[in-house]
Structure formats: C-alpha cells, structure tokens
C-alpha cells in the first residue's frame, strides 16, 4: 500500500533578513508557521512549491516541509522544523526573540 501523504507547508528563508518564512494560501509570506497554508493534497504540493518559487527574487531555498494540523494552524512534525520556527536553544534569539519583544 502506498504510504499516506504527510501534509506539507512551503518554507524558505527571506533573502534580505535570512530568517525563516512560510507560504500562505494567499500566495504571500508569513513569519509564523501557524499562518501558513497546510497542503494536504499530494498532487497540489509540487504546484504550490512552484508558485512559491516564483518569488525567488525575495526568498532563498524554498522546499516542502512536513507539518500537521494543530488547533491554531500548521505545526511541525520534526524537530528540525520545530527549531526553525523557534530559534536556537542556547540564546533567546531568532523567532522566540521577536515574540519576547511583543
């Protein structure tokens, strides 16, 4: 039996800032994973990636990352994406710093 499709989000880094960004259903970019579009259809995923790559002048290295549905939107399934959406564990830098500023 083919393995069930793991839902995906399109993620990349911002060209100027270098930070982690996610692609939304409105074809824009957000810095918050929960606002990203969760792609549940295997056939759509590569098309969404191609759409995202049209923005290659302002982003770097778009790819499809595994994600799952959470109460507030997409959540990571793997620890690498957990770190990308949070920041390093040795300092409160990265996205967790931005949150602390709020």
């Amino acid at each position, binding site marked *: 039996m083919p393995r069930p499709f793991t839902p995906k989000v399109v993620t990349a880094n911002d*060209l*100027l800032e*270098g930070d982690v960004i996610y692609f939304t259903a409105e074809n824009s970019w957000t810095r918050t994973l929960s606002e990203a579009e969760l792609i549940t259809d295997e056939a759509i995923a590569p098309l969404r990636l191609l759409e995202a790559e049209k923005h290659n002048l302002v982003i*770097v290295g778009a790819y499809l990352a595994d994600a799952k549905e959470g109460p507030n939107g997409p959540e990571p399934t*793997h620890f690498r994406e957990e770190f990308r959406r949070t920041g390093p564990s*040795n300092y409160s*830098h990265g996205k967790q710093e931005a949150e602390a500023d709020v």
Partner: protein
Amino acid sequence: MYKYNAFDTAFLAERNAQFRGQVERRIDGSLTEEEFRPLRLMNGLYLQLHAYMLRVAIPYGTLNPDQMRTLALLAQKWDKGYGHFTTRQNIQYNWPKLKDVPDMLDALGSVGLHAIQTSGNTIRNVTSDHFAGAAADEIKDPRPIAELIRQWSTDHPEFQFLGRKFKIAITGSPNDRAVTKAHDVGLRMIERDGVAGFEVIVGGGLGRTPMIGKVLRDFLPQEDLLPYLEAVLAVYNILGRRDNKYKARIKITVQENGIDTYREMVEEQFIQRRAEFDGTDQELLKEIETHFAAPDFRDGSTEGYDAAYGSDPVFRAWVDTNLAEHRKDDHAIVTISIKAHGQTPGDATAEQMNLMADLAEQYAYGELRISHEQNVILPHVHKSDLPAIHAALKEAGLATANVGLISDIIACPGMDYCALATARSIPVAQEIASRFDELKLEHEVGELKIKISGCINACGHHHVGHIGILGLDRAGVENYQITLGGDGTETAAVGTRTGPGFAYDEIIPAVERIIKAYLEVRETADETFLETYRRVGMAPFKAALYPDSEKKVA
C-alpha cells in the same frame, strides 16, 4: 610558472567591491540564487537555519588587538553582540543581514582580515599550533611558513576548483597541537642534522570516513615546501574523484590509489615543479619571517606572582590549569577559557573581545591567538602580570579554570544553527559542563577532551575526542552515539563506538557513567582517561553504559 600573489590591501578592497556589486545585483534581481550562491560562499557567507552566517578566517589563529577589536565591532554593530570561535581558527557570526555583509567585509579589510576561501573547494584557512612562537617545545615558529602557504594558495588559479575542500595544518613542535594527522595535508616540523624541515602527512580527515593521515615524505627540506605542495595538489587534481563528493577528499584518493602510487606520482611532479621555482619564494619567506620576530621579552622579578600563587587558591587553580610553558622561564602562555560552565563553547561577547584586546595590548606584547579548541590565548605574558590579568578576566567572566578538563568541550553549532545538522550539540556541551561543575568532579577527573558534532561531517572533531559524541536523527528523534579513545595529537587515533546511541535526555547520564567507571578503574589519580582506556579497553565502559545488555549476556 609559479607566480606570487600580492595579497595586499588593493586586492582585498577590489574583491570586497566586487562582492558589494554582487550583493546589489542579487537584491535588485539581476542575479538568481543559483548564480549568487557560489559567489557568496567564496566570500564566507552561508545561509543557515535561522539566518545568514559569515565565516571570517583567522589565519593560523593569530590576531593583533586591533583585529580583535574589529571582530568585536562586527559583533556589536551588525550581529547580536557576540561571535563564535570555531575549531578551524575561524570566527562565525550567526545573524548578519545580507545588506550589511559588504560593510562587514570592508571593516575586516581595514585591519587585514577577510572571509575568502573559508568555503568552497579551495585551499582553506591554513591552521597552526595556537602556541606557535611561544611554546617551550617548539623547534621553530611555523607561522611564517603558514603565511607563505596562505599567500601562495590565495587565488592560486590551479587550485580554485579542486575536487573538494582542502585543509592544511602546520606545527613547529613535536607535540602536535594542530591535529595535523586529521588534515588533508599535515606538516610537522622536524630537525635533521640541525636543519629544520617537515614530515609531510597526507590523507587525514574526519567527516563520514575518518582517517589518520599517512606519511608521504619523512623529511622535506623547508625550501622545497611550495613545489612539493604543488605536486601534492597537482596529483590530487589528476587522481581525485569528481563523480561523488563523498569520495572526493584526498584521503579517499590516497586510499584508493595507495600511498606508494601517490608518492611516486608526487615525486615525479615535484621534479618538474621544483625546476619552475627560482628562489623568489624563499626570499619572500625571509621577508615574512621579519614580521614574526619574537617580541623584546622584558625581564623583571616574579615575586608578586609567587606570592599570589601561594596565597590565592582561585588564582592558583587557574594558573595550574590554564597556563602552558613558555620558552622563556619568566614568561607563560595564558589560555583564556571561552567555556564558562553552562555557556556556549567558543562564544565571546563584544565586551569580552575588547577586554582581551586591551589585555593583549597592555600585557602580552600585542599578541592574541585563537585555538582550534575554541579558546583565546595570550602567547607571551611575563609572570609578574598574571595576577592583574587574572583579576581582569575574572570580572568579565573569562577566568574559568578548566582548560583541558571535562568542561573544555569542543562543540560544533549543530541543530541550533547549522542547516546540515541532524541533532543539537551546543546544549549537550552546556549540560555536561554544568553537571560536572555541580558534581565538583572536574579537577579530580583531570585531563579529558570531549568533542561533539551535530552530524556526520564531524566539524566538532568528535572522532578525535577522548570521548566523542555524535548527534544523529533516528526516526525523527535526536540520538547520540559515543566513541571512546580518540586522540588528535601526535599519537592520533580515531575513537571506537561504544554501541547503540542515547536519547537526548540520556546522554548526560551516559557520560556520567563513563566517568564513574573511569574513576573506579584508573590505577592512580595521574592516569588520564585516555591512558586508562588504552590500558583496559572498552569493556568496563561498555558495562557501565549498557548494564542491562551485560546482564543478558551473563
């Protein structure tokens, strides 16, 4: 024909101006990322998990105070107030913005620093003994040769597109502090009939296939060094594989072709290459040597030092662990630990960098070194100045007395920063250090090198750690493999795996069990961990690590 590259201010300014233009063109859309990526990598700019990362070379680990202050300036002005010193005698900035990088490079250029060839399939920053020029056991300061190699290799047209990165390390001492046997080429200075020359070691390396280098030439006269290196690289260009990047390093080339074939081909090439050298390089070397002349060492009484040593136990502990023998009796080599317990190994704040620059200027003849063990060194200090230095360091959180001990850990950036990582390494280092500080066992355990990498690339040298820790991703969970018995010195060895790995929350207790086993089986308090391991082998450590499986076997 060999042509010397005048690596001067003009070259650097031009190169920086080119890169500024490239960044502008990337931002305005005239360059794609595919076009820009190799250009930025050539200038030390990576993209990591959360941000860009700029890697700056510290050639053979030597800095003057103004250079250190400039490193501090970069941290303060364009980063988050700190920099990360690495095992390759580089400093990395974890948070630069693309638009700022050209300004950062210009600031570096103003003090003769750069990020060229810190990436890509070129000859990388030549690393050296961090005690060079000061060590009591040294035959000769290897840095003039390292500088000669740097000038020769920088932008050398024949060696810009090698099969893979190429790392050269050089030491002037019989006690190898530069890990020469784990480099593509290692140069160990030796003396024959009163003449200094090199033992040339080739094909060492870490990464996914760790190998200890083999001797290619047991004695190479100093004046033959550049033509011989050219021959080694020319043969690598001919024989080295380009079809598979995991088989492209020279260690594989040497393994697949055999050291004897490699040697024959090098010797053949060498004859041709040597004929093309007309002695210009040796004249250049003489000129370079004048820049590395030893400082005018001052004399003076060391009474104040002796008194402080007798009366202040904190100072005494620091002296006993962080000082090394200087070639002048009344001087010492000071290692400043950038490994305060619980902190990130190798990270220094801008304030700390400025303080170290000031101390170097005031007390250490304006010299600083960065070690591959991620510490900072004041290579020449008159002993009478040690109490003042220690007091100043203490205030800045830089007086940790742990050099060579269990908390003096090498750790790569790992999953906290690195895009290639399979697990974290920094927090493992932080927790080991904190734990053994809590247990107050560190000094009792004595000399012990723990080295941690966050993936198989082995940037944290885990293969040559007495205890090596490798972080892996096992089915989506961090898992840590342990190796024992690695050694990065003249008696180099690759560590042996203990068995199955440990989960993130099991790795600290596992290290603790290894240490407890060591304390039980060592013969005397003077027998180091490595000596004990070499005497008793893996068995007692395995029993301590995997008590359940032992029971099953029994």
